[in-house]
């Protein structure tokens, strides 16, 4: 097994505020292998965007990694300076596609110019090499290479998103981080963007960390996933593990809040309460207030991530996980078989 492209180990990230330090991410761990598409799912305040930013050294000024490791191909990068991130990580090894990224295209610069800017700063490629590479990528994401010299506003929203993906791939990074890549898009555009993201897998060897609140997307498009709540990793593992054998109450219940168009009559579950607003240290399971199966022990210290049923690739942080199959017996929807599957 080669080194994972990205490995996050016991990561703790804090924000300094007037009222003291806020623990935005607590003891998070997950790994992404070569060519793997990994979904990071959670609701507001769960820490998924924070982790994404920390990987490329893009935390806000008052954010810092208080402990833990971020490893890129085995090398620890959490303590890099901004200069080191710029030189060694950003664009070349890890690319980030931020939220509503069509807004990150410079509106007064033609696309190919923006590409040339990138290659000039980070590589020693000739102009011709860059343009060839860009044309190749345009092709892979389904954009006509003849439009490389257009301005961003000449593309529609979905196409702009694909332009950003093409630029993110320009310098051949090993990992792309996409933060809510399709939230601003209509469902048909979303489908097309996701189709092209899958295409990329066939032509280029690149891993994807997709951050989203939409668990349906993750189940469809990703190979592995991590579910987060209130800064903690609730569950992490392969798609099939988390889908068929979820061990954390949040993963179990979260799946049931998403409508499945195949079963429109199925009742959706509500989860009590709201995602917590974090402040200060985290000394308990942040899902405890909302969990139907919480016990006093759940509030005695942040629960550790442990292997589920002995599978070291399927982690969860519920201290009652071994009882979950029983406790949540009527919650797991996909166990039901209906006659009219779509």
């Amino acid at each position, binding site marked *: 097994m080669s080194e994972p492209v990205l490995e996050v180990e016991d990561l703790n990230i804090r924000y300094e505020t007037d009222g003291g330090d806020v623990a935005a991410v607590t003891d998070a761990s997950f790994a992404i292998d070569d060519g793997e598409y990994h979904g990071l799912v959670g609701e507001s305040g769960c820490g998924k965007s924070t982790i994404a930013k920390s990987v490329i050294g893009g935390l806000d000024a008052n954010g810092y990694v208080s402990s833990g490791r971020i490893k890129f191909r085995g090398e620890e990068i959490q303590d890099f300076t901004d200069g080191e991130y710029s030189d060694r990580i950003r664009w070349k090894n890890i690319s980030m596609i931020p939220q509503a990224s069509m807004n990150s295209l410079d509106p007064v610069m033609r696309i190919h110019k923006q590409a040339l800017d990138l290659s000039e700063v980070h590589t020693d490629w000739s102009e011709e090499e860059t343009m060839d590479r860009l044309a190749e990528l345009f092709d892979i994401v389904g954009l006509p290479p003849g439009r490389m010299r257009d301005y961003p506003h000449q593309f529609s929203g979905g196409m702009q998103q694909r332009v950003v993906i093409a630029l993110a791939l320009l310098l051949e990074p090993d990992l792309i981080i996409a933060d809510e890549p399709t939230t601003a898009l209509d*469902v048909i555009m979303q*489908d*097309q963007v996701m*189709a092209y993201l899958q295409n990329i897998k066939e032509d280029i060897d690149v891993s994807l960390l997709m951050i989203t609140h939409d668990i*349906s997307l993750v*189940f*469809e*498009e990703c190979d592995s996933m991590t579910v987060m709540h209130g800064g903690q990793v609730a569950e992490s593992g392969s798609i099939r593990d988390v889908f068929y054998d979820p061990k954390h109450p949040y993963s179990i219940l979260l799946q049931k809040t998403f409508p499945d168009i195949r079963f*429109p009559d199925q009742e959706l579950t509500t*989860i009590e309460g709201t995602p917590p607003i974090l402040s200060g240290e985290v000394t308990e399971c942040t899902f405890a207030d909302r969990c139907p199966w919480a016990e006093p022990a759940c509030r005695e210290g942040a629960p550790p991530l442990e292997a589920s049923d002995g599978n070291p690739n399927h982690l969860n942080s519920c201290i009652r996980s071994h009882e979950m199959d029983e406790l949540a017996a009527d919650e797991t929807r996909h166990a039901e078989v209906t006659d009219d599957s779509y």
Partner: protein
Amino acid sequence: MTATEPILRTEGLQKYYDQSTTPLEVLRNKLTGGSSEPIKAVDGVDLSFHENQISGVIGESGCGKTTLLETLIGLNDPTGGEIYFDGKPTSEFSKGEWHEYRRRVRLIFQNPYEAMNPKFTVRRALKEPLSIHGLDKGEDDLHAVLERVNLTPPSQYLDKYEGQLSGGEKQRVAIARELIVDPDVILADEPVSMLDVSTQVAILHVLKQLAAEDDLSVIYISHDISTVSYICEEVNVMYLGNVVESAPTRKLLDDPEHPYTRELLRAIPIPDPDHDRTRSNIPGNPPDPMNLPTGCNFKDRCPDRMEICDVDPVLYPTAENHHTKCHLHYDHEQYAETGADGEPVQSERRAVGDGGRE
């Protein structure tokens, strides 16, 4: 559909916008001969909404659903066509009747974080529509309406400010504010898209309950077919200012007729790693309301386009409750004879036979 009269109905509703909005631009256009073609945001829409029912209107951005909403609520005037409320056309409304309409037809907005004036307490926000409509209600009524939206205990919420409520709570206060004047119709514009997923379901359940228990007609507008299918009993699909298909939810999902509806349904992600979904495959750009083609608005992207699509199809009843605006689905000869209002259709000479596909 129920046999009773619809409480709210539109007939050929149109809302066009001028491309130039300021006097300066109008002048400039006249001088330079620029485009003065209006944007046909809503272009001839026929819809009916009944009490005790939740209807959905789905469509992507640019389809005109927001404009439709604003016109229904009276925030702008229709360019053509008619809205019938309780049988009476709104174009004949007196000022007093409009005021009454605004009490009985209410709108829940998309953004719960802007739903309340940040300077208002919940109590003040709830009292506002009461004072606008001259209704006198006591503290008990405020409590009752908060309970209808599951904000309990109500006394805990009445004196809170907007900034002290969660997103879901804000949206519920917004709903309560609309309910307090005893309306007949509630229009909801993407009411849950800005909320966390775990909160969305609670709000959807509140809406479902309102339609069932309180004789309300709920009209739910969204681009998210999954949530629409979850709570709506019937669905209307909009594309570029037209309703292209209308059917009970289950029927629409099982048997979509319009090519756009089919593509839309095909594009929905299925939360199942083992489900092999064929992707939607629509060519061309997403719709641009500014440069509409002649004939069917969808023809440039339609995988089943035919020659006849250069003529605008009508919204044709393919089954008792199922209407589709597509040449593939209607018997042109029959229509030519009987028509919707007795007028023969242009497509007479190019009839496609029995309404089947070519």
